[in-house]
């Protein structure tokens, strides 16, 4: 136990200087002529673990490296494109592709997410990416009409498989299954608005979604309903 004569307080931590005023501490003697009752607490010297100072880096080096490379490629292409402009903004293809790669490759690598989450994100971003390519190249008739519905079916099927494989964790995945089922009905809207020409893949996607939904209610009715209430409570 030490003592600071300036602050008139005792200091119960192993320090050379007073934590309040930085005065050099003297040793507190209990055998004074005027004994002061000690506080009931035990005289521990070290009350707290030492801080291991080093602040951890939130993003690691690999992340920063890839991010920098992306910026270099993207901005270089944009610069060249603008300097030698020939009527086509071709650099947007490059930037769009880089963005797509970040969402589908880098995001799952760097951000810790559930596989269901990644499947949903990948499906959605691939559909959007292909549809914009389709629009940009004016080669209509493949992305939204064929790829998107089949991609949705494949993703729904994949999540169904995962639920079967990891039955204990079905609750985690049922929410992604629900999202995929809702997405699976989207192509029907494309049919109605006339965005897709052969409508059978879109109808098939909606039908498959319907079957999956029916299966979920039939095989896990109460539990599934509870899960939906939890996730969607207002």
């Amino acid at each position, binding site marked *: *136990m030490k003592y*600071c004569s300036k*602050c*008139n*307080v*005792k*200091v*119960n*931590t192993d*320090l050379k200087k*007073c*934590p*309040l*005023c930085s005065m050099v501490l003297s040793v507190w003697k209990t055998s004074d002529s005027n004994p*002061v*009752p000690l*506080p*009931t*607490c*035990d005289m*521990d010297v*070290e*009350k*707290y*673990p*030492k*801080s*291991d*100072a080093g*602040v951890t880096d*939130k993003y690691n080096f690999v992340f920063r490296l890839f991010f920098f490379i992306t910026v270099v490629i993207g901005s270089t292409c944009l610069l060249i494109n603008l300097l030698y402009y020939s009527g086509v903004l071709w650099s947007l293809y490059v930037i769009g592709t880089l963005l797509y790669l970040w969402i589908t490759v880098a995001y799952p690598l760097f951000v*810790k997410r559930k596989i269901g989450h990644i499947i949903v994100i990948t499906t959605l971003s691939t559909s959007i990416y292909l549809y914009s390519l389709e629009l940009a190249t004016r080669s209509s008739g493949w992305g939204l009409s064929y790829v998107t519905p089949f991609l949705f079916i494949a993703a729904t099927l994949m999540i169904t498989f995962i639920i079967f494989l990891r039955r204990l964790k079905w609750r985690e995945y049922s929410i992604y299954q629900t999202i995929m089922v809702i997405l699976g009905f989207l192509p029907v809207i494309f049919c109605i608005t006339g965005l897709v020409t052969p409508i059978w893949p879109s109808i098939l996607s909606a039908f498959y979604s319907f079957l999956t939904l029916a299966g979920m209610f039939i095989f896990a009715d*109460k*539990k599934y309903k*509870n899960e939906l*209430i*939890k*996730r*969607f*409570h*207002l």
Partner: protein
Amino acid sequence: MTLRSRSARNDNKWYKLDNAAKIYPAISGPSRGSVFRVAVQLKCDVNPLILQEALAITLPRFPTLAVKMKKGLFWYYFESNPAIPEVTVEKAPPCRAIDTDETNGFLFRVSYYKKRISLEMFHALTDGTGALAYLKSLTSQYLTLLGLGVFSDDSILDYEVHPSFDEIQDSFEKYYDPRIKSRWTEEKAYHIYGTRLAPDTLDIIHGIIPLKSFLSLVKENNTTVTEYLTALLIYSIYSTQLKSRVCYAPVKISVPVNLRNFFPSRTLRNFSSYVNAGLSFTEKDYSFEQILNVVSATMKNEVTQEKFIRKISANVKAEKNMLMRLVPLVLKNVVLKSAFSAFGENLFTCSFSNLGAVGIPDTMADYIDRFEFVLGPPVINLLNCSVCSYRNDMIMTFSKVMHETDIERFFFRFLSEKGLDITIETN
């Protein structure tokens, strides 16, 4: 409220976040933990294996703590967590944000260091009172497993008794009044200036004050412990930073109030409100007595059941607003976050939380040195204070993210000049 367990299986239980809890997930992250700590210091070193066993035994008694947080489309919710939390050795800094990857999804952390058992709690789960109730049950079970006896008393929740519905309800929802029209209107407060510490550090200064002599000092002034300490805190800030300077922004201390004292609630979830007490220093000189009078008057005026009903009604009604409810969680978080950064910590200069006297069975007292209550680091402000008392000692704690120590120095020197025998501890 709303314990919805339609299935008998334990793992299917889920809870809505209580009204006060709803803000915390939106505003918290690695840099703002919203974590506070209650700790107990025993007379001998903690045995981690036995503490782990005590934790596993007592946790099921506290179903609203044994949860993980999940995202719904509109709100967060708590879901029973079947895992068992791990007791860890304490790591610096205290009250750092809870990383659910480290805690098996739990939103609290039980750690030990030498003689101390610390319970660090994410504020969305419960407030100081709820956390202390759990810490006491855990400690008593720990001591029992050590073979030191069985401790039971009104002051401790028995782990063998089934939790009552009262304990898991959202009392805000129970006691609010839907007819009350109320708005939040508060003035921005003065902010302490100082040099900020490096990130991920928290300085803690405990001052151990003999309770009896302090109480007689408080009695002399015809006031209460909270009022006296709040006034002294304001006086310390005024004397070190504002003296002979005109400052129109008021120095306001946010004092949390345990609403269980005003309503017949036994909930173990959040149930506290706050009073912002303070004044602006527009004239030249202020004495401690002057400040104390203002603080006492504010407290007498504000600390009443009607005022608290008014306060909680505004919050519960905001939560129940259909428009607010229909907004997806992602957007809600943005709204809450920006509202909090606009108001939140700007409305007060510092927090001062009084946990009160910690009561335990007399037979248990032989094994316990003291209890500590530490608030986590503030983000905009630089300083938080808390106090709790146990038997003969009162422990005042400054948790701060600034280098300067003027305020604490003034604070403790003031008390020691009043003849109190103060012991300082620091990390």
